[in-house]
């Protein structure tokens, strides 16, 4: 088969090597010089090295001979250095990698041409390996998109030879700058400087020359660089392009490497993914030697899910560095835990495996901090989900919150706090005819839970426009003959829902009184916590979103006015833990943004709320959630760290490890964790 590869980067050259070994005719055309490259070193993981060893041993040997290897990550934060070990990385100078690949490709008989534009390529297979800005890709419809992702960044080299992957966080009058740096040979390290566009503009970097901007960075990181110097290689400030393609081949033209996909540099996987693409494509062609189309489908099916996972992680990592300035209040060890677990690819358990010493200190620090004591040298502690939480004058015995029909059973199953389901303030605030109300019947339930040592909270709300629905067979299906509904504005929840009445001041006074009366009954019943429901489109939430509050009166101008008056009135009679279940974003066009949600959380905390239970969506029935494991965690993280208020988060957390990771990294203080029964439990004893 005749194969034309456009682009002489790592993916194109490596593919040429692999295809020559199976006897194909391979031509590589590269527009630039053989040693032209942007950037400095590239990183590989152990896993990638294994794949390279199996695919072509000679290049593997040569690559590993000139590798810089290290196992530590240094985090320079608040003039301290936190070192985490057990992470295996290796890196190589990019030009050296290209040289190795070029020599090997030539030795195997591939034809390499440089300084040549790929004008009319042909062949049985045409490979677009010409990078994120692929010219060949533009000639066909691959469903391509390329959008800027994350912060502004600039890629320098330095003659400071590091012995660890190094993050530096430097606060300036303009804002925070961070460095991602790692060694790649015996003389040089990569030194990437990154900052938000806002800070970048404030520092005047948008108008600075290349020399001035390098001088700026040189002086900014003088404490770390010392007498060493930064080096430029076309080092200008860039936006990272997030490249995606809905399909990766068109006829006999196939995309590999950055032409097919990119992954933000902060997870260091671009070259790894590119070379793995080459391996997968070569394998697919070997599997279907006489059917190129089949092979290309096979390649795509193999690689797309892998790449999607990396792009998800890379997106999370890029977003983390965009908001990292908000974490500067975290204690150094927690800041480090948050940083190391930013992309979701490393959890508390993974860290425990890689660096048990780090995790011992993290867990011990967490327990000491939770108890308000000093960290004793050599201390050991259970993982974070088992650390007590002191909050609002009470102590929750651990970080697990459950909400199950049988609360005493949930408490016996290990929860620190159990929450009732939705309890209505009064009859007219019920969701369904079966919805419990805050009457005098709750004391026995409270006693049963207290007997287990857990705390119990009542989730108290008024259903608003989501009231008077059928109790079974779905949610929000209206009763044929329901009771009158109330909301901020007269808008039905679904097209088939009843239209609520716009609340009058008299309605507000009555509902507020109902909340107070219910709180007093909850207090009399012995509840430890009271969770006011300001979420999911229920009555109080309807005031907080522009989608549901269309009022022309003062409550339109001040959406928090009525909800806060309820919080104040309840706080006055409720001495225990006060929780607000709060929608922090509507996940709907024109709805509440996360920033507004954080403002609301801050306001609630200012009015005596001890804990925010972070919710999102359901303000309207046309909400667009992005479901996945832990889909509310980032929102909780932002509320906790930007509003400075303790949080409770659910969002489909399914394992103790997920809970430990969320809690240890300071993304929430409590987690809703309701594992379903497992058949193993029946045979476990």
């Amino acid at each position: 088969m005749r194969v034309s590869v456009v682009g002489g980067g790592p993916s194109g050259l490596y593919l040429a090597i692999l295809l020559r070994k199976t006897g194909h005719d391979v031509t590589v055309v590269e527009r630039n010089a053989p040693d032209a490259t942007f950037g400095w070193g590239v990183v590989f993981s152990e896993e990638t090295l294994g794949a390279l060893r199996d695919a072509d041993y000679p290049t593997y040997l040569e690559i590993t001979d000139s590798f810089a290897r290290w196992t530590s990550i240094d985090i320079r934060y608040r003039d301290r250095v936190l070192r985490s070990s057990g992470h295996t990385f290796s890196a190589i100078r990019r030009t050296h990698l290209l040289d190795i690949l070029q020599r090997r490709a030539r030795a195997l008989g591939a034809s390499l041409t440089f300084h040549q534009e790929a004008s009319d390529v042909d062949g049985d297979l045409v490979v677009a390996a010409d990078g994120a800005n692929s010219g060949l890709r533009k000639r066909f419809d691959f469903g391509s998109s390329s959008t800027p992702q994350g912060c502004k960044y600039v890629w320098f080299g330095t003659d400071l030879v590091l012995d660890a992957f190094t993050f530096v966080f430097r606060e300036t009058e303009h804002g925070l700058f961070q460095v991602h740096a790692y060694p790649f040979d015996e003389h040089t390290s990569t030194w990437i400087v990154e900052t938000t566009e806002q800070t970048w503009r404030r520092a005047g970097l948008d108008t600075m020359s290349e020399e001035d901007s390098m001088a700026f960075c040189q002086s900014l990181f003088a404490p770390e660089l010392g007498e060493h110097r930064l080096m430029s290689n076309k080092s200008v400030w860039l936006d990272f392009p997030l490249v995606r393609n809905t399909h990766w081949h068109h006829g006999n033209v196939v995309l590999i490497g950055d032409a097919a996909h990119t992954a933000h540099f902060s997870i260091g996987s671009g070259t790894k993914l590119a070379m793995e693409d080459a391996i997968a494509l070569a394998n697919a062609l070997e599997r279907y030697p006489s059917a190129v189309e089949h092979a290309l489908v096979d390649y795509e099916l193999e690689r797309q899910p892998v790449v999607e996972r990396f792009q998800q992680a890379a997106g999370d990592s890029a977003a983390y560095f965009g908001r990292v300035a908000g974490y500067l209040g975290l204690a150094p060890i927690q800041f480090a835990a948050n940083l190391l677990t930013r992309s979701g690819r490393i959890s508390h358990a993974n860290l425990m495996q890689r660096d048990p010493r780090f995790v011992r200190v993290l867990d011990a620090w967490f327990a000491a901090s939770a108890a308000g004591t000093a960290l004793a040298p050599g201390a050991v502690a259970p993982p974070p989900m088992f650390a007590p939480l002191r909050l609002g004058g009470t102590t929750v015995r651990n970080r697990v919150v459950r909400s199950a029909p049988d609360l005493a059973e949930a408490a016996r199953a290990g929860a620190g706090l159990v929450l009732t389901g939705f309890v209505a303030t009064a009859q007219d605030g019920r969701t369904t005819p079966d919805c419990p109300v805050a009457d005098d019947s709750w004391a026995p339930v409270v006693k049963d839970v207290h007997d287990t040592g857990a705390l119990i909270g009542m989730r108290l709300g008024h259903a608003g426009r989501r009231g008077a629905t059928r109790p079974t067979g779905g949610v929000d299906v209206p009763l044929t003959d329901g009771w009158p509904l109330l909301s901020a504005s007269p808008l039905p929840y679904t097209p088939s829902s009843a239209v609520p009445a716009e609340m009058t001041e008299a309605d507000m006074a009555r509902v507020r009184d109902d909340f107070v009366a219910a709180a007093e009954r909850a207090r009399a019943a012995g509840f430890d916590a009271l969770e006011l429901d300001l979420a999911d489109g229920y009555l109080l939430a309807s005031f907080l979103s522009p989608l549901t509050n269309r009022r022309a009166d003062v409550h339109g101008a001040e959406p928090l006015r009525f909800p806060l008056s309820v919080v104040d009135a309840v706080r006055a009679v409720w001495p225990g833990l006060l929780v607000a279940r709060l929608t922090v974003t509507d996940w709907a066009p024109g709805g509440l943004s996360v920033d507004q949600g954080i403002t609301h959380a801050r306001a609630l905390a200012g009015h005596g709320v001890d804990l925010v239970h972070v919710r999102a969506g359901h303000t309207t029935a046309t909400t667009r959630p992005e479901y996945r494991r832990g889909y509310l965690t980032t929102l909780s993280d932002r509320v906790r760290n930007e509003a400075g208020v303790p949080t409770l988060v659910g969002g489909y957390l399914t394992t103790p490890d997920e809970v430990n990771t969320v809690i240890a990294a300071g993304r929430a203080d409590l987690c809703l964790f309701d594992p379903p029964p497992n058949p193993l439990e029946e045979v476990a004893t």
Partner: protein
Amino acid sequence: VSHVKVGVGLPNTIPGISGELLVEWARRADAGPFSTLGVLDRLVYDSIEPFAALSAAAAVTSRIGLATNIAIGPLRSPAMLAKHARSVDALSGGRFTLGLGVGARKDDYAAAGAEHRKRGATLSAQLAYLRGQLDESGIGPARPVELLVGGSSGAALARMARYADGYAHGGGPPRAFGSAANRARAAWQDLERPGEPKLWGQGYVAFGDVDRGNAYLLDYYAFTGPFAEKIAAGNLTSARAVRDFVRGYEAEGCDELILYPTVASLDDLDRLAEAVS
């Protein structure tokens, strides 16, 4: 340990299918190891209407479940949809499951005079009707029908969790099903539904004439462009591939897996029965 039930598709969307073959297919499936007979839905195609196909199947079967997996809800008025569903359920003595989705083809909408742009909202309104007003509509026979909803977006999963008893996945390798199943469970928890959603999966098979099966898939899914090739690449063409697929789905917590033929061959049906028993 979860045990996935395995159903088989009726070849109602394979062009040229005869009534005789369809009915014989249903008879053999009923006598075989399958839990359910599933049907697909397509308007602008040489295919048999799903409720008509299931009515025919109901007449010659006594045990096997019958399911639309899925029917394109918005092509039909809510009342007619309910009438069809309740009729098939009554004809089969309560063996029917109604799976609904928005489908993926604009020409089906154009032909039916339904608005493609509003398909999500229309499906939601239909589901609200099926769960609510239908009870007082006088449209009989009055029977509770199990409801599944398909779709992969967050909005679709929220719709599923709001109104349905379970989720109908659109097909793919077990790993893709597992990821969708997790999102369906997350939606279920998000809407505070008790327990877990029923999870239905699907796959395609061809044993004898694999090329013909693949050609059918490429034609049936031609409107998806290059994606059709990936669907065809997932066609299960050996007993071992089928068993691996079933085990994969079982491991991901699938409750019911429907395997659809891509060639209307009774021989393939027999081989599938052998592969899954």
